[in-house]
């Protein structure tokens, strides 16, 4: 049987304009990597956004796998801009294989 370990998976929904800020926070937290996936549309307190990507208001989802401790450091670091910049952060426990990488 292979062995799995528990790590945190963090997903941050962010404006494309802010993606560098999020990924550099990940780098600073000492996390090994991150992956950016596209987003199509959404609705929040500011109403719907849909086709505004021509206008530079499109969003992406940044996902990263990290140890509990680094994940909390990242969340701590991003917390102040979460509400001001309309970011959405969720995190949960996942099993990974070869957990020493993260």
């Amino acid at each position, binding site marked *: 049987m292979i062995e799995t370990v528990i790590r945190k998976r963090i997903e941050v929904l962010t*404006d494309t*304009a*802010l993606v560098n800020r999020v990924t550099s926070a990940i780098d600073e937290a000492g996390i090994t990597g991150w992956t950016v996936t596209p987003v199509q549309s959404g609705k929040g307190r*500011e*109403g*719907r956004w*849909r*086709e*505004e*990507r*021509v*206008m*530079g*208001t*499109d969003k992406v989802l940044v996902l990263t796998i990290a140890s509990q401790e680094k994940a909390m450091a990242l969340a701590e670091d991003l917390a*102040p*801009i979460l509400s*001001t*910049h*309309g970011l959405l952060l969720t995190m949960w426990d996942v099993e990974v294989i070869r957990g020493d990488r993260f």
Partner: protein
Amino acid sequence: MDVTAFQTFTSPVVLFFILGLLAAFARSDLAIPEALAKGMSLYLMAAIGLKGGVAVSKSGLDVTVILALAAGIAASFLLPLIAYAVLKGFGRLDQVNAGAVAAHYGSVSVVTFVTAVEIYELRGTPPGGFMVAVMAAMETPAILTGLLLARSAMKTRQQKTSELLHEVFFNASVVLLLGAFLIGMITGPSGFDDVAPFFEAGFKGVLCLFLLDMGLIAARRIMDTQALTWRLGAIAIALPLVNGLIGTLLGAGIGLDTGSTAALGILCASASYIAVPAAMRLALPEADPGIYLTMSLSITFPFNILVNIGLVATFADALTGRGVGLP
């Protein structure tokens, strides 16, 4: 003026924009894929840059060009001041939102400019090729003024100024417009001939599809928004009128030909909805995109395309004596 207005509404370019507006109001699911819309805007900027550069390589740079550049940069720096006063006073916006919106109205809309050039060429008063460089130069100064106006009210972690300046001067549209302009100047008419079938022949057709998309987006946004008051709606009509007037006076004042005068007018009248919103997201995240995008994109942009391009042209005719422009 009758002729201009009439020409506007039989131009396929404008009709596709209206089709987009109507389709969105009728809640049709018509939509242009995002990648395509971005591709079309890159194409339009490369093409307009190239054509401007080739035109300047023919006519050369002279004192008029320098004056036009100076006038455009000054307008971009100063027009936000008027807008800010109106937005805070009549518009009842707070300092941060007033500063953010003001930055949009000092900057320019590439597609409004491009559509105006098409229509002015049809009228027989094509603007000079150097107006493309004026447009590129006008994109960013307004951002700095807008930020200065909003700054004292900013509470969050400041965007590093160097980072912001970099974003502002190397943003995609400035780089592509000026880069293509330089390429046009270097290759000149003979080098351009090779790529003309792509960048020239296809231009109006691409503009049709792009404006179809803009119509869809502008109408959908105004249907979805909750942030807009009637006061802000009125300002979004008044500012392009006033700014267009100022720009046209400025153009005539420094001795531009009819077409270039009208083009400077429409640059002042137009409001950014790509470069400035992106900068505001970074530098003024407290400002509400629901306000600045809806005003610039859903009210000012259609008003300019459908009405103001014609008005500004008529005014430029009167000021410069029509026929001065080289047909």
